[in-house]
């Protein structure tokens, strides 16, 4: 018991450093996913047949294959094959970003479809081009009503980031595994890691809840 405590105490700074990396992965992946998701949703709703087929395949593939398989496929396989020398950190951001991008595309697609049709028409009636209408009228509303689903997606990506250690990214889990295998205090170290993840989830979710409140507009009760 005492030994566990001293190991936790000694390794905490090291784990906290890892959590910075975890945060970096999550922020990077979420933002990359946001770009992919928005572009994907617009393409799924407004794109032509070809664009829709391609995007449908993208969403289907990244929502259907486990993260672990994708990490191995891209990091050890495709990236190598294509001669891309990404670090584990960058690779994880790209891969998790593509996965959450597929989920986010679905979220935003649903949000676009839930908007009254009149919104687009009214924008066109004012003389906006399709792109202007989408960027200035549709997407701001879509982002607002998608915050709860996006928050959920954040907490999923945060937890998925714990798999980054399988390709050697030294985030929380990678470091926890390193310490545990040397000190044999597996239980104490993994519990500590669990608590760190729990706190990170809580911080992120509260921050997003605050954001949601801050940009609330009457009539968007979602």
């Amino acid at each position, binding site marked *: 018991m005492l030994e566990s405590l001293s190991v936790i105490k000694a390794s905490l700074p090291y784990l906290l450093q890892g959590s910075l990396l975890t945060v970096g992965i999550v922020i990077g992946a979420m933002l990359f996913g946001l770009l992919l998701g928005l572009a994907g949703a617009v393409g799924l709703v407004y794109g032509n047949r070809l664009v829709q087929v391609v995007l449908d395949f993208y969403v289907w593939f990244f929502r259907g294959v*486990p993260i672990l398989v994708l990490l191995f496929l891209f990091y050890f396989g495709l990236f190598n094959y294509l001669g891309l020398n990404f670090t584990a950190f960058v690779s994880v951001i790209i891969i998790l970003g593509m996965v959450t991008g597929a989920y986010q595309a679905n979220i935003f697609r649903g949000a676009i479809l839930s908007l009254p049709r009149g919104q687009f028409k009214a924008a066109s009636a004012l003389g906006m081009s399709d792109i202007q209408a989408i960027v200035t009228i549709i997407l701001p509303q879509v982002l607002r009503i998608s915050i709860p689903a996006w928050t959920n997606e954040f*907490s999923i990506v945060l937890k998925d980031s714990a798999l980054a250690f399988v390709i050697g990214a030294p985030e929380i889990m990678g470091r926890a*595994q390193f310490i545990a295998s040397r000190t044999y205090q597996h239980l104490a170290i993994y519990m500590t890691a669990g608590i760190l993840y729990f706190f990170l989830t809580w911080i992120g979710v509260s921050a997003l809840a605050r954001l949601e409140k801050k940009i609330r507009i009457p009539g968007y009760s979602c």
Partner: protein
Amino acid sequence: MELSPFYQELISSLNRGLLVSIALIVPSVLGGIVIGILAGSVRVFGVPWLRKAADGYAAIFRGTPLVVQLFILYFGLPNLGIYFTPYWAAVVGFMLCSGAYQSEYVRGALLSIKRGQYFGALSLGFSGVQTIVWIIIPQAVRRALHGCGNEIIYLIKYSSLAYIVTCIELTGEGKTIATEYFRFTEVFLVIGVYYLVLVSIASMILKKIETKWHIPGFGLH
């Protein structure tokens, strides 16, 4: 057309792994649903201390990564003298984690049932148990179905984590071959197809059930 020896070996290993994966997924899905129904019901109808305990369970298992939970079960608990085989560590971890998520859908479904439904039943002379069996459960099942189905799909994909606690299933078999031949792209593309097939079959079955049980006014897509 003959497959090359590499692909022959790959396919036969992956098929072996697939069986292990299925042996992991089926009990985990069933256990997760049972736990989810129990915990979800307790979170809505339970006495305060039980409700708090179930809320706490759901918060912990939904707030931490599955891989941490598996590591605690497989590598951590031996520190306390509790040992699981890789297979059972994976199944228990999957059940507990999935149950926490399922409880969330069950809870949401139960909370979404309007008070009037209870009033309607009670005013006719239904007992509490009869109301739950004949009125509440049939409605809650339909409300929870979509979310619970999605959770099953997630669980199919996350069953790949069993390999991390050395239970060699589909992903683990593939990793072995990929490392041996150093052919990651082909191997993991093929594994990806296996999972896509699994997930697609499961989605199809779930969609069938949803359509079959569809009732106007229950907002299922």
